[in-house]
């Protein structure tokens, strides 16, 4: 309800929150549970301001806090031995895992999901998915050198597939191609369970010198926080629009009103990508890295500045003070909550010592990248954010970034599982010999087995000239030194290989074995190119964690993957969890996409895929 005294243009402030402890807040609309809201009040000793509520709600969301998966993901740590870790420079918890591949080179790689946005707006959802994973890799101090995409669609002939499939494919291509990153592989699977919930997972590989490894942290009181890249706009704000101050109440009477009074009309939660801006952001960021101008760096992805400021501050040793008025905006009249929640793309946040600020800004100017000092590191231990002369956020940063709720969700093996497993192929009719030809033709023409060229022909696999293997190979390979821009000399050229795999049907039949099969397939695919597998990442796509059957699938898959990695002796260096992938009450097939990274010492010795290059070749079957 709108207060009699109204709200100033700066909106809700800490001072005001102290004076109005009982003002109702739309925390439920923002996805917070009653007890979560109560905990925020307890942490702060008062009600949160609108801006604080926006921050907590987004940072404590499933997507950012891993609140349902955390207790299970811990198993990866338990099963990773010191020996498995020996080449790991950064692991779970960092933006992306980093492994040492020798001679001072390191490789970072990660897969992220962008499933829901890609259903709403296929082109932009997929495009910004690629943009987001690339910034993750960039934030580690690495030059992004290749991308891959893992796609799951509803039936190829379903009407909505005609909107979703071309849109997503051209979005992945449109962004990656414009960025100059070769696409070196991926997957496409059609299944009815993805009809209302396609999966768009995007992977990126980056290369760096070991000494250039950057982690996201803000330390050193007095160091400046610089926001650089695109301006901040109203895109991607989605749910936070329920917090908009009453200044906008009259804007659209039809818009849903909420507990905090009127609201700005419902804003689209769609972000629009600008790959050109990202391309210059990459070059600009690598230049400030190499000039030694940054202490810490963080990409702005989901949760925008809320995430960047709280995570940087939480990982540092002090606090942080931010002046939101210094954030360059693209829209007029944005509130503090909106600025903090905006998911405008192509932005990064850097921590820079005061003496290097001018040099940092000069590099940005060279690349025509907007850059502004928006705050500094402090010794207060608190994240304090001011807007229009008032304090709108004053929180302990760790409580936002890392101390979100953790749930032990109920787990139950579904009763239907036994029947599912009992339903084997034994009951299927065996084709007559005379039907075999027709059967083979039908199979190779089926959407799940036919050639992928319609898709892969829309992706640039040549750009930068370092792609040694891409489609139709089972794993992609790029050479390392030249991708980075270094001269590889005359000797052998080291390369890095990556494959990703997952079979959702197998995983549904047995989540533990299914995850292991995905791992084994990706491992084999890397191995058959001539590369040695060294590390694993994943993107775990599942239904609702509130469904005990889904949680069972999830916990089984995590255990299967972790045990499999321990068996193979290679570590999981990171991953991503995407829950709530379902249409109505029906979950997607459990889809734990597993990515395996490998190293090949001399790319000229890679194995070209396929058989039949020469007549007289022998076929040898390995294994049972």
């Amino acid at each position, binding site marked *: 309800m709108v207060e009699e005294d109204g709200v100033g243009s700066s909106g809700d402030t800490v001072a005001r929150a102290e004076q109005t402890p009982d003002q109702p807040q739309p925390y439920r609309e923002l996805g917070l549970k009653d007890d979560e809201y109560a905990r925020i009040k307890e942490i702060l000793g008062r009600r949160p301001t609108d801006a604080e509520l926006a921050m907590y709600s987004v940072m404590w969301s499933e997507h950012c806090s891993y609140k349902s998966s955390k207790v299970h993901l811990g198993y990866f740590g338990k099963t990773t031995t010191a020996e498995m870790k020996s080449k790991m420079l950064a692991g779970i918890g960092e933006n992306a895992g980093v492994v040492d591949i020798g001679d001072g080179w390191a490789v970072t790689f990660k897969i992220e999901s962008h499933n829901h946005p890609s259903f*709403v*707006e296929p082109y*932009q959802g997929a495009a910004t998915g690629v943009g987001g994973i690339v910034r993750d890799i960039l934030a580690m101090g690495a030059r992004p050198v290749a991308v891959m995409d893992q796609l799951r669609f509803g039936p190829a002939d379903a009407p909505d597939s005609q909107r979703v499939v071309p849109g997503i494919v051209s979005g992945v291509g449109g962004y990656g191609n414009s960025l100059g990153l070769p696409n070196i592989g991926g997957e496409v699977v059609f299944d009815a369970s993805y009809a209302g919930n396609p999966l768009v997972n995007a992977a990126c590989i980056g290369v760096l010198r070991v000494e250039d490894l950057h982690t996201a942290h803000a330390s050193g009181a007095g160091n400046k926080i610089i926001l650089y890249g*695109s301006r901040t*706009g*109203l*895109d991607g704000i989605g749910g936070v629009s329920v917090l908009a101050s009453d200044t906008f109440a009259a804007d659209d009477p039809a818009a849903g009103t909420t507990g905090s009074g009127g609201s700005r009309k419902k*804003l*689209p939660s*769609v*972000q*629009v*990508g*600008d790959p*050109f*801006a990202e391309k210059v952001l990459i070059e600009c960021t690598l230049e400030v890295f190499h000039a030694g101008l940054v202490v810490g760096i963080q990409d702005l992805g989901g949760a925008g500045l809320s995430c960047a400021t709280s995570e940087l501050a939480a990982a540092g040793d002090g606090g942080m003070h931010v002046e939101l008025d210094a954030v360059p905006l*693209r*829209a007029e009249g944005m509130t503090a909550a909106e600025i903090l929640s905006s998911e*405008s*793309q192509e932005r990064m946040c850097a921590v820079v010592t005061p003496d290097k600020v001018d040099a940092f800004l000069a590099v940005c100017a060279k690349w*025509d990248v907007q850059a502004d000092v928006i705050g500094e590191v402090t010794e207060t231990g608190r994240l304090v954010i001011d807007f229009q002369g008032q304090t709108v956020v004053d929180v302990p940063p760790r409580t936002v970034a890392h101390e979100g709720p953790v749930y032990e969700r109920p787990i139950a093996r579904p009763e239907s599982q036994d029947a599912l497993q009992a339903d084997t192929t034994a009951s299927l009719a065996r084709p007559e010999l005379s039907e075999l030809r027709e059967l083979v033709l039908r199979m190779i023409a089926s959407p799940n087995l036919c050639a992928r060229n319609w898709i892969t022909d829309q992706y640039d696999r040549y750009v930068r000239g370092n792609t040694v293997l891409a489609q139709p190979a089972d794993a992609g390979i790029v050479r390392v030194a030249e991708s980075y821009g270094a001269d590889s000399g005359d000797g052998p050229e080291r390369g890095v290989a990556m494959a990703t795999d997952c079979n959702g049907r197998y995983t549904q039949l047995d989540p533990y074995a299914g995850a292991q099969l995905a791992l084994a397939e990706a491992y084999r695919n890397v191995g058959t190119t001539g590369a040695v597998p060294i590390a694993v990442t994943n993107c775990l796509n599942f239904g609702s964690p509130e469904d005990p059957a889904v949680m069972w699938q999830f916990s089984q898959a995590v255990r299967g993957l972790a045990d499999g990695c321990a068996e193979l002796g290679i570590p999981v260096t990171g991953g991503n969890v995407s829950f709530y992938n379902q249409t109505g009450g029906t979950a997607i097939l459990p889809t734990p996409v597993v990515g395996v990274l490998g190293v090949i010492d001399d790319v000229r010795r890679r194995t070209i895929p396929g058989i039949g290059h020469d007549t007289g070749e022998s076929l040898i079957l390995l294994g049972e």
Partner: protein
Amino acid sequence: MARVAVDVVIKPEILDPQGKAIVAALARTGHPGVSSVRQGKHFDLEVDDSVTDADLEEIAENLLANPVIETWTITRLQDADAPVAR
């Protein structure tokens, strides 16, 4: 037969990278007086008389524009046969 123009523009709150690039290029090439450019699409349709305004609305919404990020205006021009200032 009638001529119809449909102009599709990106919603104001949504980033228009095209427009941004053009403003910057204009400033560089001696046209600093252009403070904002939004790039959209322009469609010239020729429709027969059976096509109603409601049809046009549906065509714009379902095919010519993406309602998630764009808005549009529909303008019926004079007869197709009459020359159109263009």
